[in-house]
């Protein structure tokens, strides 16, 4: 294998690894940006992801040079990245010097930063586009088709990794919420039993005592219930004025 092929293979393996191991999105995307520069001989690369507001935010870049960061950050409304995000297809400008009409704010900034070409690849899985991968070239001219294909494949694997990570995080959170809600439900029923026993009431009356006390003392129902169940609070206290 050529050095390039080795690097490419390693990159895919690293990306696939993220699907199984602990995942740091920032690390992951930085690595991807760096590899793009090495693999495709472009000047710089950057990744933008869409936030909840639908606008693009800088997620990673191949260098922290001010000019590159600014070039990525100004693309919230206009530029190759937003275009790729909105359309879900490859967006390219092989010579930014030829026209500023397409991206009137982005183009002059890119030229000033020393870039002549810009390519943006959508980060997409089926109908869902989550962001875009930007490649900036110092020379005018297209990124070769073969490179574009490989870059898109990297972007696709990265997209799957990010979506899986988000889904897993959301699932974990929901599972925790469900457990908590289940336990809360149970402890409230148990507390009703404790109150019913200690104050010689039926379940409805017991619940009313619990609810009234929680309200009067500005405490959460489930917290008062838990205290009654572990007996750190006595039901007689509920009745005290």
């Amino acid at each position: 294998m050529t050095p390039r092929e080795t690097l490419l293979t390693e990159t895919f393996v690293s990306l696939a690894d993220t699907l199984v191991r602990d995942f740091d999105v920032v690390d992951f995307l930085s690595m991807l940006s760096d590899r793009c520069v090495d693999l495709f001989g472009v000047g710089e690369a950057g990744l933008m992801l869409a936030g909840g507001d639908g606008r693009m935010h800088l997620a990673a870049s191949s260098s922290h040079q001010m000019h590159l960061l600014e070039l990525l950050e100004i693309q919230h409304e206009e530029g190759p990245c937003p275009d790729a995000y909105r359309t879900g297809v490859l967006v390219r400008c092989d010579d930014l010097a030829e026209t500023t009409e397409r991206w009137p704010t982005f183009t002059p900034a890119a030229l000033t930063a020393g870039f002549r070409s810009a390519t943006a690849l959508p980060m997409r899985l089926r109908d869902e586009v989550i962001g875009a991968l930007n490649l900036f070239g110092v020379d005018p001219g297209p990124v070769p088709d073969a490179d574009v294909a490989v870059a898109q494949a990297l972007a696709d694997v990265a997209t799957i990794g990010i979506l899986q990570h988000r889904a897993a995080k959301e699932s974990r959170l929901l599972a925790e919420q469900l457990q908590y809600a289940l336990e809360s439900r149970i402890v409230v029923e148990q507390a009703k039993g404790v109150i019913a026993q200690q104050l010689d009431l039926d379940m409805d009356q017991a619940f009313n005592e619990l609810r009234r006390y929680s309200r009067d003392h500005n405490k959460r129902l489930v917290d008062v219930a838990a205290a009654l169940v572990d007996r750190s609070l006595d039901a007689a206290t509920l009745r005290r004025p």
Partner: protein
Amino acid sequence: MDADRLSKLLGDLEGDRRNGADLGERLCDACVEVLDVSGAGIMLMADGQHRGTFGVSNAVINVVEELQFTLGEGPCIDAFNSAKPVLEPNLVTPASNRWPGFSGPAVKAGVRAVFGFPLRTGTASLGALDLYLDHPGDLDATQMTDAVVMAEVIANTVLALQGAAAPGTVAPELDAGLASRAVVHQASGMLSAQLDITVDDSLVRIRAHAYTSDRSVNEVSRDIVLRQLLLD
């Protein structure tokens, strides 16, 4: 199960979810159809305990659920705790006597083979899927794979339902199975205050009494709540 069938199943479930149909039962019916078993049940669990039944496909599986709730032993319990499928192809003459209380009554109810699949998402466990056959036998490779897929579909459905719930509350579709157990927790509370023991110990005593008097945990609990039964 091929991709088209799975797609159709998911599509149907989505429709059911939106029109509020008894989703738990439909999921169980789907399991019976897709997996070609005699019955299916979905158990929600927390803290290693059976907390409520989300759905059952028939009366026999209801007995299976009830037994596990009463005894705290059985395929779902083991599947949940081990996070792995638990397979018993011959409940009449099992390889090991791992469920001494469960096996006899389950066989009497018509169960000959029973299988438990954990409902998991990532590292979190939500409960387990119960499957039974009315004749002894193993699940073949396709049934096993499909059962794992169904368990995942069910786990995702449970989470999706919970995702739509008001914060701090159990989703209404999941709550139905819990509401029927409220009396058990009330009884645990009462007993714990009566005897000055923990609610966990109370539940153990209630279960023991149910088992020895051949009644359901719910029946015993009701008597305690109505003050018609005093345990020591």
